[in-house]
């Protein structure tokens, strides 16, 4: 389990639709916004890299001090961004893939408007469980 991990799903319009601090480290008030800043800044890199590869998992694309940003881009250009300090590429890849499945299930919900905030508590618990499992 990573000590710091922040997972954010960003919709195609660059709006965060799901946020979760999944690290085991104690939550700090200012850390949360730093994480947002780093992930937000990494969007530029994602923009560049997403079209250079056909793979969805873009691996670690950006770093800030000892924090690494890994990104997974879905076909609909929804970006799963994980900020982490652990080096566990396989785990992160599996994590992203499983979250992708969950996300597709959310999309299949006829009451969910694509691009709107994901409020499902079930999704939240599942994502946190996956984070515990893989990260």
């Amino acid at each position: 389990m990573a000590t710091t991990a922040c997972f954010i799903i960003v919709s195609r319009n660059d709006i965060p639709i799901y946020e979760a601090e999944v690290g085991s480290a104690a939550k700090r008030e200012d850390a949360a916004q730093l994480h947002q800043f780093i992930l937000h800044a990494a969007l530029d890199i994602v923009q560049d890299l997403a079209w250079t590869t056909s793979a969805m998992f873009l691996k670690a694309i950006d770093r800030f001090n000892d924090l690494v940003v890994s990104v997974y881009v879905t076909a609909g250009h929804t970006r799963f961004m994980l900020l982490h300090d652990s080096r566990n590429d396989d785990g992160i890849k599996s994590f992203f893939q499983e979250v992708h499945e969950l996300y597709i299930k959310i999309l299949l919900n006829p009451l969910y408007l694509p691009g709107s905030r994901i409020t499902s508590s079930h999704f939240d618990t599942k994502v946190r469980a996956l984070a515990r499992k893989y990260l």
Partner: protein
Amino acid sequence: MVDPANTPLGKMLLEEITPVVMVLCTPLVEESCLKNGLSFIQMLSPFCNFTNIDVPVRTASDQPYRLQKFKLRLFYASDIRQPNLEVAKERLKQVITQAGEKDFSEMWSDPPQVNDLLSRPESEILPSWFQFFNEELVRTLSFSDHEAFDHPVACLLVVSSRDEEPINRFVDLFNTNKLPSLLNDGAMDPKILKHYLLVHDNQDGASEKATKLLTEMKSTFGPNDCQLLCINSSQDRQIHHQENPWAPFKSDALPTENLGCFLNFDDFNEIKDLMQELSSKHIIPYMEQKIRVLNQQVSATRKGFRNQIKNLWWRKGKEDASDSPNGPVYTFSSVESQIRILGDYAFMLRDYELALSNYRLISTDYKLDKAWKRYAGVQEMMGLTYFLLDQSRKEAEYCMENAFNTYLKLGSAGQQNATRCGLWWVEMLKIRDQIKEAATVYFRICSEDPLHSAVMLEQASFCYLLSKPPMLHKYGFHLVLSGDHYKKCDQVSQSLKYCDNVPNSRSSNILQCFHLQIKHAIRTYRSAVSVYKGTTWSLIKDHVHFHIGQWYAFLGMYDVAVTHMLELLACSHQSKTTQELFLRDFLQIVQKTGKTFEVLKLQLPAINISSLKVIFEDHRTYASAAAASVKESVWHSLEEDMIPSLSTAKSNWLELQSKLMPKKYKESNICVAGEAIKVDVEFKNPLQISISILSVSLICELSANLEEMNSDGNGSNIELQNDENKTSTSTRDIDSSSILSEVDLSLEGGETTLVQLTVTPRVEGILKIVGVKWKLSSSVVGFHNFESNSLNKNVAKGRRKAKYSPDNYLKFIVIKSLPKLEGIIHSLPEKTYVGDLRHLVLELSNRSKFPVKNLKMKISNPRFLNAGNQRELNVEFPACLGKKTNVVQSGGHSNINKVLQNVFLFPENISVQEETSLSWPLWFRAAVPGNISLYVTIYYEMEDVSSIMKYRTLRMHYNLQVLPSLDVSFELSPCPSRLQEFLLRMDVVNKTSSECFQVHQLSSVGKQWEISLLQPVDSILPSQSLFAGQALSCFFKLKDRRKSSTSEDSIPSPSLLLQSDVRLGPQGNSEALFDVYSSPLADFHNSERLHQGMPLQGNEYKVDFVFISQLLKGNIDSGAPNTPLLISHHACHCSLSSMSSISWLVDGPQTVQHNFSGSLCEVNLRMMITNSSDAVASVRISTFDSPSSSIQSSDASAPQPGLPPENQAGWCDIPVVNDMKVITSDALATRFTKSVSLESVSQFIWSGSSSTKLRLQPRSTAEIPLQISVFAPGIYDLSNYVLNWNLMPSSEEEKQGEASKSSGVCQGYPYYLTVVQST
């Protein structure tokens, strides 16, 4: 690719990495120069830069090349040392601070938008002071001992002609103890090129003395190395140099100062020639020669395979010897230093190939020696050489990165060098359009010094902005990081100053010092704000706005601070403590501004516009808020037949008023002066902390009258805010023009509160509700305008709604005050039990001066509520319901008409006068369980005919909850032994959970029924109380009184029977029975009947019952204390299930004694047949005693075709299938065995005709004699006859298609006759 030398970095390198000339001069020389406002070096500097020197140079190779550009750097010997780091830092800080002040002056303008920024040229985007800062930063590192290019190549010794003993002065000048440490500590060769210069000031006299001295010098120091320079040839201050060449070299010069004023054109040329000669004749040849010499040495010692092996072996052996962090100390005589010098000289003379080969050679040596700083320095130079050669970019970058990392490895000692290396690297990357990489390098340059980091980060952010495509996210992030660092330096300086214990008197000065860099911080954040504008990344937005707001507040720019803090208020996603912090800071800043802020669309609290609800009263008035919230359609259907139809009403008054009222307001809402318009607004607190808001009120505009409104807003509109009305146009007391309510409320975290605000116009005119305002604290006023298009208006106007333009929703025409009735129904329970009967009072009051008349009332649910008579107003309940023998019971029938109409008309003579109230009795009965809404609407007309509205309605709405109480059911069955008598079973179940009911009375409705108890209630229910869950079954005898005359049965005592009411209470109870025919009970009964869809005048064969019980002490509020609740239950149309129009009774002896020895026994029987229908009936009675006869009377046996044949034999009864469906199989079996056993028994036969037919007139009774002959004693069942009846309906009944049975076949009743043998 552009020539590397022409790129910014190339130019910089050609400027910076050039030979250094050490200048040693006497004070008198300086003195002469200062006459021109220049120091000696400054005087020479403009002539050190040669753009076209055109000198042939031959270095290591035999092929000479020509050098075009060349530059010398002149330094005083005292300056040739490593600059003091602290001083340098202070200087840099000053540079930044100055820049901050300068930029901050522009800060009042709006921040530039990102898109605007991008469209500008690069030079405008980048702050100009970056370049300057970078150069200063690089210069802090000059004269390092690990690099040779800053080491002086030559020494210029200058003596003035005025000096005494100039020759000795020359010797003294090059005195070792005055020389810079570089020469003294052996880092460089002290034997350097010396050049002797004699300066003669022409103002001191002619130059003869100087020339004499020169020859003396030439003989002493050699003829080539001595020169004479004459300056200040101009005698007066007339010389003005058009393009003053000295200006760039004296940065702090005042513009008025005339630099070089004594230097005339001859001096000018002399200096120029001097410098040219110095560089081309002395310095360059000297360097050439040195390169050649060193190259030869290096080739001899290091080139070649043998030397390399030797070198390697030698270094390995040395490895463990030296372990100092900077590696071994190299003196100028060491091979390594010489190689470095060789490289640097070659670099300075632009022989980059040679330089590179030497750098390569030395770098491995330094690496092996672990002399990291030197290694890094060489790597750095290699990178630059690669760059200038424009070869192998990768190599160049690799070398720069290597150097950078190596410097970083050295820790703080190498930090400065790393910074310089990084800056060069950045420039290199920028030139190659690798701007993103440049940004990362800037990021890596960041050291622990926050100020440098801040500048570097800001430069990095600009790199991201300038990259193609622009990386705005990164730009914003680095701006924020940079801003944080700028802020951090303030904090650092703050803490430092506190440590120094500065006296208090200077504290204000210090305070200014604290915020030196905050302006930079604000500048970066301001740019960031424009980047993050409209972002949905909430934490980012909050962070940026919060900090910039705080910083503006530090600087005392509270207005700007507040605008930023306002963005934070609706931070529902933040934690509770953060929300508290934001709110507290916001309020503090607002307080500091010392003024009241009026904020449109303040986000705290949030207003739910869709919840906006306007309640106003035109001709419709409401008794309560609940009534106002009822759908208009409900009222509309209720009032439909009561009020004059809307269209006619409208045309009436509008036609009347059309001249007065402009057409565009025709469709406006109308309200009455003096009556409040209520607006419901929902406030929501998005935060987790509780907030309190004060003085919530509406913002309204009321124009005084219609005429003013016509002239379309000529400034006479009265704007009303709170109760302070600012206008004074009219002479009247303006305070009375309208009244606004103010509400203070406190919202808990996440709470939503509905606030009702009212505005009461006092004068006629046009009222417009603009919005709502409130105070968050004492000094923040929030506004919210109601935008008409988003308005969901709950008060619909029926048919006219479609015509409304949305603008008019909140616009009202105020008409002059009208009478208004207020009504209340007193003591209407909110919760009660089914059957609860009460006496209520409706009170109508009129507050105005004008009376109203023509009152009408309609009640939505007459089962629940009924209007009473005026005389019932003060009656005592329930005693008034008691039977009064003397009262003619006709009131009930008159009320029936009222119920039918559904509209209750108050008597004509009643009008509600000024300040009086009218009370009217109402009867209430809870008819069915459930949640019941009662709507009452009262119509009234104004007596004042001239008013715009002719009538108004008062609408009342009550909700009540009716709980189930008793479940009463009745079952009737015919009495077998009596004609026209029935058994009645009443089942009562107490459905409540805790209440105890006392049974009181059962009444049948209708005069024709008599009801009596079969057994006293005492025996069934000794307490007369029915407890929760308890059930009671009671049997009654019901008799049709109309037929009693023909009945010859014994008549019970009339006192008991001749009534339709039965007391169920204790016998001794003297309480009067209730009269079910009197007004309330009868009315409600009729309603019940209506409800069940029965005609009011019922079928006589159906009976209605009223069961009355009392609840003595219940949980329900009974209205009056100590009065039992009266509960009545109405059951309508109880009927005998199989009751037909024809009934009969066989009558005869039960037991006959006969001596069979004589003759057969004949028994006479009577059959009484009653036709209770209104039609003539034909009845045929068929008797049969044998199967054959049964078959013969086929019509009689037709209904039973499926009977088994054996059953048809014998005298036993033929089971009537349709009556005996429930007979079990074993019951059938016993019957069969019985019939078999009885087979042998002799039978009886019917005497007389086997079929009798008769006509029965309507409502008549006939008697038929019957006779049987019995042959043997026994018990006989005389049921083997069939009654066929057929009604012959009258013609009108046929048309109606009456559903009741018109014909039927009846089996005979069992009638047992016992015949015994008489003796």
